[in-house]
């Protein structure tokens, strides 16, 4: 946690929030120092914010490959380890192996996407954080990290833009 306090400005709806973001940028506070917390997803386009990167798709692809490898092990590895002849079918049968490969690949995608969310968002995280319960009631919060001398000006600008409240962000257990 940084030593200086962060400011938390609460807005009721998205238009005012977008205006506030512009004003913050005009003050010289760049996108890196502003975070948006909301109860419904607000896309970056709505607020004029930079694109948010996520590793989830890459992790999903990695999981697909991992799953396919597991499928290959099951379909071709296990008969190699334990050869048992059944029903006039070859030891390494192609159509059943396709089924196994498909299912394991899909399982890999699903598991890695799910765990990817956990990894990227660093879930679960039960340490105290900056949060106010109003956010889940539909308010949009701007978490502003600005130098101490600019605090008053930021507060003024946020209130002008239509914030419900501007206060110091408190770290609390969720």
């Amino acid at each position: 946690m940084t030593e200086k306090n962060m400011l938390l400005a609460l807005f009721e709806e998205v238009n005012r929030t977008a205006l506030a973001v512009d004003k913050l940028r005009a003050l010289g506070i760049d996108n890196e120092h502003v975070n948006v917390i909301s109860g419904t997803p607000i896309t970056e386009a709505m607020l004029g914010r930079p694109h948010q990167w996520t590793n989830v798709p890459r992790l999903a692809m990695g999981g697909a490959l991992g799953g396919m490898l597991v499928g290959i092990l099951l379909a071709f590895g296990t008969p190699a380890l334990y050869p048992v002849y059944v029903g006039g079918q070859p030891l390494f049968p192609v159509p059943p192996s396709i089924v196994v490969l498909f299912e394991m690949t899909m399982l890999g995608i699903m598991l890695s996407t799910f765990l990817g969310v956990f990894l990227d968002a660093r879930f679960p995280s039960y340490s105290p954080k900056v949060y106010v319960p109003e956010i889940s009631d539909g308010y949009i919060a701007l978490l502003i990290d600005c130098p101490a001398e600019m605090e008053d000006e930021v507060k003024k600008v946020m209130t002008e833009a239509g914030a419900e409240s501007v206060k110091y962000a408190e770290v609390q257990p969720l």
Partner: protein
Amino acid sequence: MSVMAKPLAHAHGHEEHDHEAELRKEHLLLDPKPRGEMNAMVMDMMEGTSWKFWVIVAILGALVLWGLVYSWGMMIANGLGLAGVNQPVYWGLFLVHTVFWIGISHAGTFVSALLRVFKAEFRRPFTRAAELMTTFSLAQAAVMIFAHMGRVWLAYWMFPLPNQRQIWPNFHSPLMWDFLAINTYLLSSTMYLFLPLIPDLAMARDRSTGWRKKVYSVLALGWRGTEGEWTHLRTALNIFAFAILPIMFSVHTIVSWDFAVAMRPGWSSTIFGPYFVVGAIHSGVAAVGMVLVVIRQFMKNMTYFIRPEHFDALGKLMLIISMAWAYFFFNDFMVQWYGGDKWTDELLHFHEAGRWGWVWFMMLICNVAVPWLTLWNKTIRRTPWAMFIIGLLINVGMWAERFIIIPVSLSINRMPFRWGDYKPGVEVPIFIGSVAFFILLYMLASRIIPLVPVWEVQEGQMAHSIRKYGKEPVVTVSDLE
């Protein structure tokens, strides 16, 4: 006041205002309430349980004890002699009910994934109710799979792990494909249930106290709603929605291959894959309708979220799917009837005119006649109790379809000296126990899990608006992605 077609030239402010008000009354997504209020409504649904609820839970618990614990326990101790399987009908109601429950499980995925992919906005308030159905019905399918095994205590041998016996399961077998596919599907749909639930769990965490707050705090994983978190979640949901569809199709196709790869008259049919998938969606969507009628009737504040428009949309889907089912059934039937070999002929004759012929007719009436005679009518579609009955009849019809395919078809084979009949035994109490277990799980879940995905409803409400096109107020939906 009914809405009548009016020429654009009439510009009466009063009528336009009424039209807009009608639109808002009709469509949830045009009738937004403040998020705080919707949150309170959803929390209210979970808290405040009447004594009548607990009476029903107790009755269901007793049925579960009798059906699943006692009857199944007796069968494990005494063998499958208590069930109805014999030579040649080696598979009976246990397999029928396995396929039945897996069929119902396709409801959730269809509603939350397929409708999401097609951007059908009406899905928003009930995706979670449908996904819960999927998880709980897959649990019942697992019960039925374990129940049909002769030595169920060795079921873990199907699990591919290195072991000291140096033996692996047989991946040539459709039952092993089932094992992989059903487990993949179960895990995927549970994950797909949990991911969009996280923001609602966070909302519940913020609005509860005591033990509830502790439970939700743990389950919400520390969700706040930062940009990063939303991005990861929404990306994951998109991947899930697209990827779970091939899984859904593959699961019931693989289940159908349990029958289709076998060399039995009536089973060795190449159309079984898509036939079963469409059948599963048929029974699944009908079951979603039934569940929605019940929760709308008995849960507080549900009438705001689930409106006649949803039953209307579901009813149209049910009609189309019923037509698709009829198409696949006729494909299977016509081809066998026309060029059938002598055993297939015998089988078809037994289906229609044998001891279980009435089940065959019931299948056709419930799956085809009932939907086709009723669901074209808008009033019927918008009447919840009518949709419940139609949904129930469709599920009865789909149960009958699986009964015909499994025990009735197994009665006939290529060795007439070994044709035989099937009389169910302990399968019946076990099924009753599993139905009770399904309802029980659902009822208990409704006390803990917020049943309406409020953030998705609000997202939909944000995207919808009414604007004027000429003189007419029209509904617009924007793509907020």
